[in-house]
């Protein structure tokens, strides 16, 4: 332009048309590349947002009295127990000794770790064997048809 200080260039220059095409397609494509993730981002994902605070552990009536069931809570297993009186309790199913998964023993009405015979009572307290600490206890609420387990605040 009028104030340019560039020296005249040697050789043939790409035509104006070609440059405009390159620029136009580049801008168009890059805008698509920016808009596309944004739109995909705005569409909510299928997995509902209850990744680790609370989870539906079971449906009401799924568990018989005096039985237990392992469910996934975040990336760790948890144990839902239905007591003989029909009430629910939930615990972390990760044994505090060597991180094996514990289970509910219907015969002794206690929580048992098969790895080293660790025993917890139905309050999650370590009562026998190697476990050094109690199990983490979760809260259980029955909401309609769902048995919802959540971390204690």
């Amino acid at each position, binding site marked *: 332009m009028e*104030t340019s200080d560039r020296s005249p260039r040697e050789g043939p220059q790409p035509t104006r048309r070609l440059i405009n095409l390159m620029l136009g397609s580049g801008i168009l494509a890059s805008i698509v590349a*920016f808009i596309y993730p944004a739109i995909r981002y705005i569409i909510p994902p299928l997995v509902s947002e209850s990744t680790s605070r609370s989870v539906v552990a079971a449906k009401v009536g799924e568990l018989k009295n005096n039985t237990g069931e392992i469910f996934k809570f975040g990336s760790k297993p948890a144990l839902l127990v239905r007591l003989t009186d029909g009430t629910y309790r939930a615990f972390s199913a990760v044994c505090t000794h060597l991180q094996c998964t514990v289970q509910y023993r219907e015969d002794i009405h206690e929580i048992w770790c098969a790895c080293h015979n660790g025993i917890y009572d139905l309050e999650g307290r370590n009562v026998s064997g190697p476990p050094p600490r109690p199990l983490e206890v979760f809260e259980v609420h029955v909401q309609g048809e769902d048995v919802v387990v959540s971390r204690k605040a």
Partner: protein
Amino acid sequence: MTTVYRRVLSWLDERFGAGSIEEFLRHKTVPVHRHTVWYYFGGMTLFLFIIQVLTGILLLLYYRPTPNDAFESVQYVMTQVRFGWLIRSVHSWSANLMIFTAFVHMFSVYFLKAYRKPRELTWITGMLLLFLVMGFGFSGYLLPWNTLAFFATKVGTEMAGSIPVVGKWLLIYLRGGEEVTGATLTRFFGFHVAVLPGLATLLLAMHLLLVQRLGMSVPPGVEKAIGEGRQPARSMPFFPNFLLRDIMGWYAALGVLGALAAIFPWELGTKADPFAPAPAGIHPEWYFLFMFQTLRYIPAKVIFLEGEFAGLLAFGAAAAVWVAVPFIDYKAGFGRVTRFFTGLGVFALGYMAVMSALALR
């Protein structure tokens, strides 16, 4: 094509005098000399700020500012939401790049004496914007509610508590209570997405308006050389020549951001536990490191002041001097370059670099 453009322009011109804007753009020029490259950093900072606004709005769609949900919602964004990892990583990386370019912009303006009369107000609004940007960084750091951020915020806000008389009040004001809790999180969220953006928009408008009114400053050395006829006064039109170069830079920045986000996703860490002992190696974000390190070196008592307060006082005084530099170095306004202020700038830059390096050691 051209006729459509003309017609649209004339339509707008009839409504609000858009023609004068076009007229202004046509006449706006940018000086060309060996320091022209520094002119790009202001625009780059502005571009990154816009990226921050856009990605910030997107993050708002999923983020929940409560201590129970904050970490989980960010985790959800990172793992479940499509491209959530990209949006969040870009937001974090862009924040850091923005602070970096803002500092580069500030120091280039300082060394090229662009703050001299008549641009004192541009300098002051710019400095205030820099403080705001750091405020954005400080408040945003806590929002994912991870261990590192939790304790960094605890330490950072504790410093405010060391100020006599108002310290206690200030601490409670910042934390929303005696301790860093959910109240702090809500508060910082409010600062980060409402208070600071509002202030920043206002100041940014003033800053940009002043830049447009006053045009770009030519460094005193170059000005003198032109005045003495040793160098021709060259310039290029802002539109489109300079703007196209700007856009080139912005595109490059976008590429860098995308690559950083994909190759080095911003880590989330572990969820903050207020009752857990503080982990080793708590440190604030890199742009606060020089202050953090200085406060470590200050003894518990300086004369009759608390060490921490003395440090804050020194930084406050330094910041005040820095903001007021156009008035202190008023001689620069007459084209006289004082070696002292260039030296001061070199010292400040060196000090920040050395202290940050020591903190990272």
